[in-house]
């Protein structure tokens, strides 16, 4: 990860000599996504201009990724190129707004790509409000290596998303997950990492031991996971830069369900001892453990609030699996789930206002969200087995895994908007489970 970050100098450079347009009198073009978008905003994205011959294929592919990101969010709808009246052959020429207005494109994304003498790629883009005939924000330029061309496309799409919604995007991000293969009674599992949209899959471990539930560090440089490589389930940390892995601590016991604190300095996890599972805090540097719960019941799946002050977790202390919130230092917990059925795998949203969870009721599994007091519970999915939600960096989308039933049942990754719309499979080469979504890459 680190070399990638180093290589990609995604500089948001103001392009010199940029024309300045007056803002529309009715305020800038904006789509509200608070309640979930029912009518997506139509946009046009003509093929990006190749500034030199070496950039020709790349310009086309890059603009396809931008379109795929925006359309995939279901907040935007592309007006297909076949409907375009004119293209953009010169990135700096004035835009013929009437041509885009005629096909009802409310937003216009233009771009150019050049391959520089040093092999670096430069991508420029502009966003226009067609009906106001004005630019939305400044033009931006991203510079990076050729292998990172998809990241530059994601950054363009993130900028478009941010300017049109007023919220951060989520496209320039990655997902770690468990890549599964083999029959159901002898699944082979390995950790893998990929772009949020399923591209660039890379294995992180071999499949000799069971590995479970990877979780990104807040800065995206490390991954916590559970491995059976010692014979017992054990929390491990993998450094994505050096690819070195080590057990989180050396103390005895079965440890699992680790997750980083927002500052990345400590980890909350479960420890099973004598049949009792409780939540512990581990200092990453020293490996020192602090016990946060001590009940004879099962306490597991802890997740920090973004302000680090509280932890949401699941417990069966009241007889069945339910969600609770306690202070980050331990102490009295309050129950937040009160609906019918069992609740597990709580994950605090990056905005801090919601908890995503898995719910099991009458033999069906659901992914849902609720407020911190348990109110406004919304079930977003239903199937034989939906499990393990993870939040997009902007808190608008959840990724999870869905396992099909029966002897040939197998898991795949899915995503769904927190409005419950836009449910879709995330492509992986084989079976996939236990996704963890990174923050926006730097």
């Amino acid at each position: 990860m680190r070399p990638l970050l180093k290589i990609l100098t995604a500089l948001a450079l103001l392009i010199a000599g940029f024309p300045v347009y007056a803002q529309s009198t009715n305020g800038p073009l904006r789509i509200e996504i608070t309640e979930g978008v029912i009518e997506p905003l139509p946009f046009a994205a003509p093929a990006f201009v190749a500034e030199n011959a070496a950039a020709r294929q790349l310009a086309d592919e890059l603009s396809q990724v931008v379109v795929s990101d925006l359309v995939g969010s279901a907040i935007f709808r592309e007006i297909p190129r076949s409907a375009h009246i004119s293209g953009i052959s010169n990135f700096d020429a004035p835009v013929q707004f009437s041509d885009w207005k005629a096909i009802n494109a409310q937003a216009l994304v233009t771009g150019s790509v050049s391959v520089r003498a040093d092999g670096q790629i430069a991508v420029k883009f502009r966003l226009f409000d067609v009906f106001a005939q004005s630019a939305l924000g400044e033009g931006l330029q991203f510079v990076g290596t050729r292998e990172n061309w998809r990241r530059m496309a994601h950054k363009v799409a993130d900028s478009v998303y941010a300017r049109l919604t007023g919220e951060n995007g989520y496209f320039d991000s990655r997902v770690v997950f468990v890549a599964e293969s083999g029959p159901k009674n002898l699944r082979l599992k390995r950790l893998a990492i990929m772009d949020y949209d399923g591209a660039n899959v890379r294995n992180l471990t071999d499949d000799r031991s069971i590995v479970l539930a990877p979780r990104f560090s807040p800065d995206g440089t490390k991954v916590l996971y559970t491995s059976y490589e010692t014979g017992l389930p054990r929390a491990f940390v993998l450094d994505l830069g050096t690819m070195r892995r080590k057990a989180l601590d050396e103390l005895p016991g079965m440890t699992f369900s680790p997750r980083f604190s927002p500052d990345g300095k400590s980890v909350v996890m479960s420890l099973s001892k004598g049949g009792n599972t409780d939540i512990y805090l581990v200092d990453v540097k020293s490996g020192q453990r602090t016990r946060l719960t001590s009940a004879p019941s099962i306490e597991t799946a802890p997740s920090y609030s973004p302000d680090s002050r509280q932890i949401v977790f699941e417990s069966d202390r009241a007889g069945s699996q339910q969600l609770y919130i306690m202070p980050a230092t331990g102490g009295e917990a309050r129950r937040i789930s009160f609906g019918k059925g069992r609740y597990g795998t709580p994950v605090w949203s990056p905005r801090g206002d919601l908890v995503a969870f898995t719910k099991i009721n009458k033999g069906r599994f659901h992914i849902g969200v609720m407020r911190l007091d348990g109110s406004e519970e919304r079930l977003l999915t239903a199937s034989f087995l939906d499990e393990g939600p993870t939040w997009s960096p902007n808190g608008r989308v959840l990724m999870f895994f869905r396992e099909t039933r029966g002897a040939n049942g197998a898991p795949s990754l899915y995503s769904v908007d927190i409005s419950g719309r836009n449910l879709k499979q995330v492509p992986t080469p084989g079976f996939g489970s236990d996704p963890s979504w990174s923050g926006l890459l730097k």
Partner: protein
Amino acid sequence: MKRKLAVVLTAGLLALSGCAGGLPESGLGADQSQAGDFKYDTPEFFVASIGDRVLFTVDQSTLTTEGMSILDAQASWLLENGAFTALIEGHADEQGTREYNLALGARRASAVQSYLVSKGVADNRLSTVTYGKERPLEICSTEACWSKNRRSVTVVSAGRSS
């Protein structure tokens, strides 16, 4: 035939991976009729004649009467074969979330361990591991399979210290 091949493959893969997980499964399924051929003080006899597994009801770790009688036999065998140690695996069916099932498997393994200790088996000869829902024995998605997957498996081996 196909099934047998799968069993052999399973054992091979597990041996490669150094994972103790599913080995007894292959032993038990293989051929009950041969049980009589095994010598009393062998893990094979333990699997075939004593019974290495105990089943649990949904979301429970309390031992059933049937479970306790199997464990009584396991305890007697362990007491008479003092050179063996046992690793107790706890498993859950697929109808639960991953972390919870790990905790539930740990509880089941521990319930078995406590029972064996209560029958006189030395604590330091027994260890536990949870597999949660990671190693189902039966793969259909109905109660017929789930009831067999909610199990503990007592894996005995010679001289391995816990």
